[in-house]
């Protein structure tokens, strides 16, 4: 396929559906903050009660993620960063967009393995995910790695929105690109805050209920 179209698809998939799912994921997690363990479980169950959930997941997450992620790695590989010569803000964001893409790639694989894959192979039920997360984030090492992964993904998403608006010719002049920079910075702060506060909430003892199950998975891993 010609580069123009494959690149446009890459760009679109980053926002729809991946960006949309990212926000959905943020809100599901935030249910743990608002509704505690039961609130989070309800949210997970609601999500899995959606009709044709298998196809939603396949076409809304797995395939777009595979395409955007693999093609994104190739885009990152093609770049020749020159911060040494052009140590300026936009060039930093360009470079970070690529670095956070790579971090996000590794993080998503690891995170999926710890959670979704465990559900798929039957080691854990959807209802027990809160307990599983509790077990993961009570380990200081895991907590640190999750924080790095989350901040990287949040930056990648927010700065990606900024660059998406340019790639599709929505923000054209310097003024609109400056305004969208501030908006995307605001989105970055908000999204990072929401994800991190949920992450820390999973450390609460009330999520511990399923800890024993999570323990057995951990030894399995």
């Amino acid at each position: 396929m010609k580069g123009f179209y494959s690149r446009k698809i890459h760009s679109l998939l980053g926002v729809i559906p991946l960006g949309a799912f990212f926000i959905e994921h943020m809100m599901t997690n935030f249910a743990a903050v608002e509704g505690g363990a039961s609130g989070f479980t309800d949210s997970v169950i609601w999500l899995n009660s959606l009709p044709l959930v298998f196809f939603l997941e396949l076409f809304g997450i797995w395939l777009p993620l595979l395409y955007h992620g693999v093609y994104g790695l190739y885009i990152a590989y093609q770049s020749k960063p020159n911060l040494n010569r052009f140590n300026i803000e936009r060039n930093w964001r360009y470079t970070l967009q690529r670095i956070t893409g790579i971090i996000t790639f590794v993080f998503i694989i690891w995170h999926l393995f710890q959670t979704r894959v465990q559900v798929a192979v039957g080691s854990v039920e959807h209802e027990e995910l809160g307990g599983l997360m509790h077990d993961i984030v009570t380990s200081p090492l895991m907590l640190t790695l999750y924080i790095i992964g989350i901040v990287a993904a949040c930056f990648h998403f927010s700065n990606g929105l900024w660059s998406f608006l340019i790639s599709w010719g929505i923000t054209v002049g310097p003024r609109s690109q400056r305004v969208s920079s501030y908006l995307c910075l605001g989105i970055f702060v908000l999204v990072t805050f929401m994800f991190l506060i949920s992450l820390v909430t999973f450390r609460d003892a009330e999520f511990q209920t399923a800890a024993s199950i999570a323990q057995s998975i951990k030894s399995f891993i």
Partner: protein
Amino acid sequence: MAETATAPKNVKFIITRQDDPQSSSYVEEFELPYRPGMNVISALMEIQRNPVNAKGDSTVPVCWDSNCLEEVCGACSMVINGKPRQACAALIDNLEQPVRIEPMKTFPVVRDLVIDRTRMFNALKRVKAWIPIDGTYDLGPGPRMPEKKRQWAYELSKCMTCGVCLEACPNVNEKTDFIGPAAISQVRLFNAHPTGEMNADERLDALMEDGGIDGCGNSQNCVRACPKGIPLTTSIAEINKQTTKHMFKRWLGV
């Protein structure tokens, strides 16, 4: 000019040299007596007159390219203290010393500081950066251009194909075939012209081929580096808009 009178007597240059396109590069240092108002080109001329390096050994004069000597032809682009720019407009008084000079290696190096910018001109041909008016009879006057539009279009027309924006771009390198910012901005210029507009689709088609506009990754270094102050990132975003519209129109068959 009291300051220049007390300036150091010598200026040191560290120049990256290369004997021919195939050979590897090496560094040679030169020390020249300071002269008020000297610039990088006049320093290179001085080395040409007296080709002796800092060690006192006689050497082959350093080759470079230049023409207008007033920052309008683009021939003398090189990397000076890490920044791609025109040597004829690089005053020694404004440069940190020692002055480091390298060729713009994004382009094939012919010899020393001389590079081959053929790809810039090929790019202009690829995107048809001209207005076709030739014919067998007089077509009469074309449509007029509104003054307001003429004013910003004039800014785009200042491009001297110097190649600085390509050198500044992290996406123009040996792993990609990205056409670079300059040609994209020229498409905006010719698509804005009331007669040029009649062939707008052909230029957009050319930028939707491999190595076209999709190569931009929004580092926005180009707009900061361009010596002519051309709003390259505005041009790129505008052409993003035009190609996106063109894509949908082609799909819908309108």
